[in-house]
């Protein structure tokens, strides 16, 4: 329970302490390697994880469909 409150506190603190970055200042953030998600090359690796592991979701991958039963 304490961990949940700590995560919540850190999340709120992080989001409220940030500054507004103007569009012309986003050069580094727009670098193709800075993307907050998986690159297309990761796609089949994520699929293999979703078939072999119980955990799915929260990573942009699919969360249903397909059996992955082989």
């Amino acid at each position, binding site marked *: 329970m304490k961990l949940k409150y700590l995560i919540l506190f850190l999340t709120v603190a992080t989001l409220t302490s940030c500054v507004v970055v103007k569009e012309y200042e986003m050069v*580094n953030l727009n670098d193709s390697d800075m993307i*907050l998600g998986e690159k297309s090359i*990761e796609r089949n690796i994520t699929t*293999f994880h979703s078939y072999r592991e119980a*955990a*799915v979701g929260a990573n942009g991958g699919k*969360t249903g469909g*397909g*059996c992955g039963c082989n």
Partner: protein
Amino acid sequence: MEGRLAGVVVVIKILKMKKIIILFSILLTVLNSYSQDNTYKKRVLEGIEIDMISSLYNQKGDSAAVCGGLGTEEIQDATATIVISIPLRDDGVIKFDAGISSYTSASSSNINPFSKKNIATPFNASSGASKEDEWTSYSLTYLHYSNDRNKIVNTKISVADEYDYSSFGFGLGYTSLFNRKNTEVSINSNIYFDEWKLLYPIELRTNKSNDKDDDDDFDINMYTVIGAAYSPEKYFTPLTDRKRNSYSLSFGLSQILSKNLHTSFNLDVVKQKGLLSTPFHRIYFKDVVNSFIEEFQLANDIERLPITRYKTSVGNRMSLYINEYFILKSFYRYYADDWGISSNTISIEAPVKLSSKFTIYPAYRFYNQTASIYFDSYDKHLSTELYYTSDNDLSAYAANQYSLGLSYTDVFSDINIWRIGLKTIDIKYAHYSRNSTFTANILTFGIKLVVE
């Protein structure tokens, strides 16, 4: 009098004219601003983009669910996918995604291990028809952006098919950017309607179904059963439901924290309903005397699992731009479901820019999970239990993955043939191993082209 009337008429005309002028001015302003939008609005996607990804995958292990948690798990898979993104006017993008996967699976081959060519054993692949199959999938996605590019609506339909499984899905999503594009929130929902073709282990089939597993060739009376007399009808009853539906809801929040750091949080909630077990996964009961043909143990029953499952996952990503050479990316996810499984996933990637066009991507990923309350290993379940599985994918384990990628990026597509320019080439290798005998390797290759 006439002069007064004429004056009034002139005033009225002037007033009418004024109204017309005002209305016309407003109309012009609106049209002008509209035409300005059309003239200067940057297209969401400038040209057609083609993404081609192919991969080779293999895995090894000795806990095959098809053989009740024992035997070879060997799989070789080759997958090829193509994604074509087409701009639709200025504000829309339509994506067509097609994939084909061709695999050979030693464990699936043991749905029918009695090939007559070799001695039946769970540790070798059979030559049964289930040793290989093809999976195909197609999806169509449409994204529509608002004029200021701050609102995005997406919709998607998908179909997938393999010999014993088919899936149809559709999804809807909405994304909003605000706070000068520093904050992004999104919501997505997906529904999948899946259907099984019920393939049971060969020794449990009572009716000749003429499927491709050559069950017409199998007659238990042609074999010598070692151990107890085989009578699966005591425990095995055919399944009645062949459908599996999945409903998912995803929430996302992305936030820019500084000029060099941004983060995102994701929450996914999934409900699955229907046949959630696999019809050809064998179960051996501890309290039932074993029966064998050759070296292969005959199934007492198939895997049985509840008809509903609720899954929840929360994840966080961070990307930090250290300098023009180094970037640091992290991912953490916590997952829990009502089958008793909870898991943690942590990954760290450190892209290193070797030059303006070449980047290498060393990465490490750690994963662990607790076991499902329905899991027990080979020959440990009791016949009195309601639900049971010996699928090691639902067991407790930890896994490590090491990967290395190399990327070539040409922002201006200098290399081009006809009107097709090369944008990126990626290659990535990953090695995955559990704290058991299970290991997997995957090599992926991707190329992105733009049509000018």
